[in-house]
């Protein structure tokens, strides 16, 4: 016989999660069902209301044979790996710098947030102007020091670099902010005693600070990975999928298939593949990098 008090205690955690569950069902389930349904039909854009013919897993099969699908997987993979890795390193460095007592610390912290504040269109346009081959300031700087101008936006390799530079410049502060919050909530006593014991800065960092902010690092890396996997605005504005799809990330392909070429069923199928991939990643990630100290 479970007493009333025990039962209430068992149910308490659910009450804490109740708001989230309400939103979940309200906002997400119907669009998901709609997308799944759409992905099982061959639906052209003019058939959205009447519905297309049922093709089962045909859309998925078509995707797996589509070279642009594999291309965008490759592009997205490279973008995610390089951007997240670089943002982590730069973010960590920035967080450490901001954490130390320096002159005008406050102002500097505010400056570090500025890149995050630019809306994607502004960000993309700004970098697009800077990277232009004929009149961009970057090429002008290169030629002034005697180097050759680079086709930042029209060469498959450099277009990727341009997109990555834009995204990294924009989001490193995101990582820095999280890590900084982590560093700042480390109680000072923990390393004060280490100082007294004669440890140098590097040891303190490695043995004390780093392990303590590990959860934050996991969160930041996780979040950025998901975000870059879904990236749309930056490549869309800066290179629009690059010279012949060399910067076409998955989200751009979804948009192109769906709203440009009008193949709504195919686009829905691709979206589902993306969702499944991200969830799989989340599950695997959670298995290896626990968020709680359990």
């Amino acid at each position, binding site marked *: 016989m479970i007493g009333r008090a025990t039962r209430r205690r068992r149910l308490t*955690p*659910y*009450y*804490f*999660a109740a*708001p*989230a569950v309400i*939103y*979940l069902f309200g*906002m*997400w389930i*119907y*669009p*998901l069902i709609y*997308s799944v349904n759409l992905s099982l039909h061959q639906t052209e854009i003019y058939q*959205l209301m009447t519905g297309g013919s049922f093709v089962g897993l045909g859309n998925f099969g078509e995707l797996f044979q589509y070279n642009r699908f594999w291309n965008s997987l490759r592009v997205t993979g490279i973008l995610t790996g390089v951007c997240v890795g670089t943002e982590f390193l730069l973010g960590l460095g*920035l967080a450490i710098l901001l954490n130390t007592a*320096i002159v005008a610390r406050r102002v500097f912290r*505010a*400056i*570090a*947030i*500025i*890149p995050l*504040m630019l*809306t*994607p*269109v*502004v960000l993309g*346009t*700004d970098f697009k*102007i*800077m990277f232009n081959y*004929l*009149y961009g300031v970057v090429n*002008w700087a290169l030629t002034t020091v005697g180097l050759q101008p680079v086709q930042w936006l029209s060469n498959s390799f450099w277009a990727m670099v341009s997109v990555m530079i834009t995204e990294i*410049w924009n989001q490193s502060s995101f990582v820095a*902010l*999280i890590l*900084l*919050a982590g560093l*700042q909530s*480390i109680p000072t*006593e923990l390393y004060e005693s280490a100082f007294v014991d004669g440890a140098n800065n590097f040891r303190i960092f490695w043995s004390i600070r780093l392990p*303590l902010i590990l*959860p934050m690092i996991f*969160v930041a890396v996780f*979040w950025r990975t998901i975000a870059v996997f*879904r990236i*749309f605005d930056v490549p869309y504005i800066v290179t629009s999928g690059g010279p012949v799809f060399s910067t076409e990330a998955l*989200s751009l392909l979804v*948009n192109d298939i769906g*709203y440009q070429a009008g193949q709504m069923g195919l*686009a*829905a199928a691709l*979206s589902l593949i*993306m969702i499944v991939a*991200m*969830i799989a990643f989340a*599950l695997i990630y959670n298995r290896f990098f626990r968020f709680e100290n359990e």
Partner: protein
Amino acid sequence: MLGLIVLIIAFPVFWLVRTAILPGSDLALLPPVLRFTPDLHALRIVFVHDQFLQHFFNSLIVAVSATTIGLCVGFSAAYGLSRFRYHGKALLSVLILCLYVTPPIAMILPLYVIFQHVGLAGNVGSLVLAHSIFTVPLSTWMMRGFIARLPVEMEEAATIDGCNRVQGIIRIALPLLRPGIVATMVLAFIYSWNDFIYAVILTSGSDTTLPVMIAGYITNKATYWGRIAAAGTLVIAPPFIFGFLVQRHLAEGLSAGAVKS
């Protein structure tokens, strides 16, 4: 070292401001013109003619609302996920994540239809709810990390002292979590502030947010670089101030974060 970082951060912004006040025809000139008579035409159009302030306040209302909802719901969910063990916990956390990973492109049409049925279509409220789709998971997963670091003993000690659980949370845990909460708040705010795809589909006319207004400067027949840059420059200012005011709390978190274990 510091100077280099400031330069890297500041240069694209400097270029942005320059583009905002550059006479349009000078944009493509090489070498880049540094001496020119500033042309405030673009700024004037953005501010006066295109009702910059209107869209700015729309963005602000939406971002503040979405952040608040995200924080409240997210904090409760994160607390529940962090502090308790119960069945379905893994499933719940994954489901919460699913909210975020769905590509907006796939969601906009069905979401719009839902909002139409509810009578919210075209309303700023629909945008707030749509943004909650990412602020809630963002807050949840962000706060989980911070809450997990906080030893449970703290709140349990408070319970012994006579508070109930909620009071324990409010009096002990929240102040300690302040840096985390502030960080989450800033990030959720930025997400909502910068969102484009939901804003453009779910709102129209004078209800739209800043990103939509700015994206409108890329047209079929022309790209109004100057106006984009002008709007971008005007946009940076308030979040800059917001971040400036807020990071004081980040600093205070340092002293408040002292935990006597």
